[in-house]
């Protein structure tokens, strides 16, 4: 299988043994890693007791004009070469995905889940992988997975003569890291956050409607703590989402044993010194998913947002707008899904002391404006909730025991999500944040009385058309959380307050 982003393409491998001087040729635009597989295959086969023919072996990877990359084709090529010699049978229509070690063992490869998913979609349900990838491959519904530790055992099952085979070799599986994404360890709990009632509520609203949020406040106010607790409030991923997220993570990491689909919405927190490629994806050769794609169906948290490179923030506009990231390379373009909830945190000014009365702030107004100007207008415009987070008082810290915990809030969020599904299902949408303006002002239109405040703000010029829509979406979420069928004037008013913050205006 050849993977381009998450899209997979079935590659057919055929081999011919010819009557000319000995050689081993691989056709079909193999890259360097693939060309090296000839030596790996030769050593592997001979150490397994079923050496390759000493005559001329020609292997073709069909379609011939599609460049092939990586070492995952090792096994398929080896099987084709042995089958061409008539020593094994029954290999047609089976997908082989593994790298070969020189000693004859099968080694796992990266990206097995999306590859197998694509194979099954294309009608090839029989898949053979290395033992280390077996659990991951089995996650795909409809896949008939066989796995082996050694090449010798594999060819034996396909009819090879056991006489010469090296069947005693049975390598122990190396200690593999249990995958960390399946269980995030002790989950940060909302009860840990002291006070901050306004912020907790805003977090709840963000979770309920999948709204993007900006938090502005001094260092130590708790912005990071709050951000870390957002994923805990989100509902677990459904089957389709879980398959997507697990596929992306399979491509992004290597060597993790994956025994179950990732159900917890992912949380990505790249540092502001991260490069564009680290966040958006890329790298030489096969473009790998970046933090923004790994956050698909989850949360992307940018702490100290104005410190990020301008290019990085600009690059995020594509996924925020279209829900996917297209990475262009010389060899083609790979597209990764990238629909996430964006969380931004920022200090009120470069020195961080401008909150509250702002008496200790030593920044000039120009410095403050410039600092915030790095979060470009179009980016901020997409952020639904803008919230000021203040330092907590000692009183708040002492009353820690009385704060609501994650489980309680999560339940309210779940109910709000349910209400959204029921209402938005006929439009093909899932959350309020996804509703386009046309429907907000069309099918889900509110009456004049409710939108009075908004209309006034727009007339005054303090609210743009896009801002108007954003407030409406928030109002719907507030109504869902309150259990009301439609938002009234008070919901709209509260939504407007959530949207605008004195820190940024």
């Amino acid at each position, binding site marked *: 299988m050849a993977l381009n982003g998450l899209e997979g393409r079935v590659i057919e491998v055929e081999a011919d043994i010819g*009557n*000319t*001087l*000995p050689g081993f040729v691989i056709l079909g635009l193999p890259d360097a890693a693939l060309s090296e597989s000839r030596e790996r295959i030769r050593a592997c086969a001979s150490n397994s007791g079923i050496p390759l023919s*000493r005559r001329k072996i020609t292997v073709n990877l069909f379609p011939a004009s599609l460049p092939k990359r990586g070492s995952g084709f090792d096994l398929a090529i080896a099987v084709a070469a042995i089958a061409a010699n008539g020593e094994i049978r029954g290999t047609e229509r089976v997908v082989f995905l593994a790298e070969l070690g020189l000693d004859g063992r099968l080694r796992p490869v990266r990206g097995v889940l999306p590859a197998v998913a694509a194979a099954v979609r294309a009608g090839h349900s029989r898949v053979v992988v290395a033992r280390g990838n077996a659990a991951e491959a089995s996650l795909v519904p409809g896949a008939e997975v066989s796995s082996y530790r050694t090449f010798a055992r594999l060819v034996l099952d396909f009819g090879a003569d056991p006489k010469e085979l090296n069947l005693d070799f049975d390598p122990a599986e190396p200690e593999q890291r249990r995958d960390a994404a399946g269980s995030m360890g002790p989950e940060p709990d909302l009860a840990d956050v002291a006070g901050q009632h306004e912020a907790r509520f805003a977090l709840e609203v963000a979770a309920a409607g999948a709204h993007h949020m900006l938090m502005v406040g001094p260092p130590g106010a708790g912005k990071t703590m709050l951000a870390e607790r957002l994923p805990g409030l989100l509902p677990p991923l459904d089957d389709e989402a879980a398959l997507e997220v697990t596929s992306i993570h399979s491509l992004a990491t290597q060597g993790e044993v994956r025994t179950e689909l990732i159900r917890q919405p992912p949380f990505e927190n790249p540092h502001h010194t991260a490069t564009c490629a680290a966040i958006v994806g890329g790298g030489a050769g096969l473009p790998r998913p970046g933090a923004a794609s790994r956050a698909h169906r989850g949360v992307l948290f940018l702490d100290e947002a104005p410190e990020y490179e301008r290019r990085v923030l600009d690059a995020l506009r594509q996924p925020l707008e279209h829900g996917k990231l297209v990475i262009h390379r010389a060899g083609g373009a790979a597209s990764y899904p990238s629909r996430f909830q964006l969380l931004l945190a920022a200090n009120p000014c470069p020195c961080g002391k401008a909150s509250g009365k702002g008496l200790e702030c030593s920044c000039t107004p120009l410095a403050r404006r410039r600092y915030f100007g790095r979060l470009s207008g179009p980016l901020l415009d997409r952020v639904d909730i803008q919230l000021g987070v203040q330092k907590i008082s000692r009183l708040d810290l002492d009353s820690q025991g009385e704060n609501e915990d994650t489980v309680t809030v999560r339940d309210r969020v779940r109910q709000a999500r349910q209400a959204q599904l029921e209402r938005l299902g006929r439009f093909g949408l899932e959350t309020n944040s996804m509703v386009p303006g046309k429907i907000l002002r069309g099918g889900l239109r509110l009456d004049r009385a409710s939108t009075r405040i908004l209309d006034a703000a727009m007339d005054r010029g303090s609210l743009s058309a896009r801002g108007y829509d954003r407030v409406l979406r928030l109002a719907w979420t507030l109504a869902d959380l309150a259990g009301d069928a439609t938002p009234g004037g008070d919901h709209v008013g509260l939504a407007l307050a959530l949207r605008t913050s004195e820190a940024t205006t």
Partner: protein
Amino acid sequence: MRAKDVLGRRGEELAADFLEDQGIRVVEQNWRCAAGELDIVAVDGDTLVVAEVKTRSSLDYGHPFEAVSPPKVARLHHLACRWMGERGLRLPRRRLDAIAVLAARGEEPVIEHLKGIG
């Protein structure tokens, strides 16, 4: 004479006998000139056959055929032309062959004949 040369000589003899058994008439062996050497020159019907013989006592250092490299094949073509010029023998067709002799100690030698190596 060194052991490997003895082996090589023996291989060439075996190869020549092999060809004769097939009805291919050996015309010259070990023809030398400034540019190189031809192991066997033979005639197969209307085809001039130039055969390169490689003898090995084991497969440890690779199959004999693996020792016939592309530059060697090019040189054989060149040498064949020179031979024809010198001997004045011109035939309608020409072919390059390779003969591998596996002469493991204490076993029957195995001969492989590859016709038309390029």
